[in-house]
């Protein structure tokens, strides 16, 4: 194993753009540079054709109609458009939105903005596996509720929500169901119409496509859903999102969708085995804990806490070669530990000790074996330095100590 080789296990943060995607995109920078809205010459026609093809590839992947695909700059924009767009469009019907405390900031911060605008938002807690309580969800619905927003799979833990059951509850009460599916699309089968999802956000760069392009799926029939545009100027994307289309980006996400449609099943199977191998290797050490539902999660993710070892320090023992993420406060600009892990009831100390490993298309078995060894060595090194590990080994009850917290 070449020591200089970099091993990327942070695919939930972003994925490398598949070389096949890059190849598909390149002609649209210089050779076919047209604006897809230029209806009167071959340059525009070529661009429009490429965009239409991508729309179809994405529609195929999701089992929806091409007319229901809106291109945006990414999932954050799509989340904003869905939440604020629905809030504005349906304000005569109501002003109440229900979501979860574990959603991505793009959803949570949009909800905070909506609250400032006079809307009401209910943030439901999750159980210690990270799953929503369906009874609580149903009980939270009022006659003013216009939208339920629940992510398909969580970015930190990989936990997958019971989408079909949530969809049934929303259908029963006539409430729109929106999902941020960024971590799921292209990795597991995601079919919004099969579960009753009416709006769905995702992005190219989490599915081996380029950064800077995303999609909002907006259901067109039964019910016909509309969103008030958040970006005005020209009326592109059926009046829902103005702005010259990012043709190369769109070609890229279309190609990524095409590849995913063909390769997703085999890839999930392969990654699931590698993930299990990584997990088994690391769980050999004592005082290690998997965070989030093991039964209901993405095949390529594992979020593990190594007790009495701090996350940033642990990463530093191997980050010359291996890229991962941590829920520790020390890695965040705000110095707050991961709010998702806290919502699972972990307790701050386990949140500080967490590492998220997210495997991907280009991860090999050799890399996994190297990672098991490097991380295990790192944990040992950090435990040798840790006073609370020493105390734990001596049988001291850490709960009983009066810490002089800052």
């Amino acid at each position: 194993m070449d020591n200089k080789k970099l091993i990327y296990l942070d695919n939930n943060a972003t994925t490398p753009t598949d070389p096949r995607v890059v190849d598909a995109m390149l002609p649209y920078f210089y050779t076919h540079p047209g604006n897809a809205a230029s209806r009167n010459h071959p340059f525009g026609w070529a661009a429009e054709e490429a965009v239409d093809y991508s729309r179809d590839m994405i529609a195929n992947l999701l089992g929806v109609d091409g007319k229901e695909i809106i291109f945006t700059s990414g999932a954050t924009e799509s989340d904003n458009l869905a939440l604020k767009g629905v809030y504005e469009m349906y304000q005569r019907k109501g002003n109440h939105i229900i979501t979860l405390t574990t959603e991505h900031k793009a959803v949570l911060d949009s909800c905070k903005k909506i609250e400032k605008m006079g809307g009401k938002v209910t943030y439901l807690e999750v159980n210690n596996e990270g799953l929503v309580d369906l009874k609580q969800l149903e009980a939270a619905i009022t006659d003013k509720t216009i939208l339920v927003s629940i992510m398909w799979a969580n970015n930190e833990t990989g936990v997958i929500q019971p989408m079909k059951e949530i969809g049934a509850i929303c259908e029963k009460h006539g409430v729109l169901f929106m999902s941020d599916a960024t971590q799921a699309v292209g990795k597991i089968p995601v079919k919004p119409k099969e579960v009753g999802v009416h709006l769905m956000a995702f992005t190219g760069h989490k599915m081996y496509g380029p950064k800077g392009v995303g999609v909002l799926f907006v259901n067109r029939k039964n019910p016909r859903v509309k969103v008030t545009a958040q970006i005005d100027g020209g009326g592109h994307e059926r009046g829902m999102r103005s702005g010259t289309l990012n043709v190369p980006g769109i070609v890229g996400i279309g190609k990524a969708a095409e590849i995913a449609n063909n390769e997703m099943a085999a890839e999930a199977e392969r990654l699931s085995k590698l993930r299990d191998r990584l997990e088994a290797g690391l769980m050999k050490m004592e005082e290690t804990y998997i965070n989030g539902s093991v039964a209901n999660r993405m095949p390529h993710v594992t979020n593990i806490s190594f007790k009495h070892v701090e996350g940033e320090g642990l990463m530093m023992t191997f980050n010359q070669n291996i890229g991962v993420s941590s829920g520790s406060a020390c890695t965040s600009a705000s110095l707050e530990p991961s709010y998702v892990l806290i919502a699972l009831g972990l307790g701050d100390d386990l949140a500080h000790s967490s590492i998220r490993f997210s495997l991907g298309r280009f991860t090999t078995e050799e890399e996994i074996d190297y990672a098991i060894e490097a991380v295990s060595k790192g944990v040992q090194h950090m435990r040798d330095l840790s006073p609370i590990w020493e105390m734990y080994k001596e049988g001291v009850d850490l709960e009983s100590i009066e810490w002089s917290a800052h």
Partner: protein
Amino acid sequence: MAYSEKLLEHFKHPKNVGTLDKSSKNVGTGLVGAPECGDVMRLQIEVDDESGVIKDAKFKTFGCGSAIASSSLATEWLKGKTIDEAMSIDNMAIVEELALPPVKIHCSVLAEDAIKGAIEDYKSKNK
């Protein structure tokens, strides 16, 4: 984040990792921070009775790279100083020596607290 060479050196090869006998009269122990905060430092000094000089110092830290480096550096600085000299170790000196980024300054503050805690503990045993 991109850390300084000195900080990385302290992290990779920390100085004076270990445990002194906290029941000994010559040993002062400072335990600061909390697991919930993601930072716990235990710093210990062994003082020579006659000269009042710190002849040994040891640390163990649960925390990030900056926390570990700050406490490792602290033990190096403590050895050979008198108790009074040790009291005047200032956290900003640690920040400068390790080039700690602004968001990590609190790690140096914790190290200073640990030093003072160890000294207080020694003094209270040797009134």
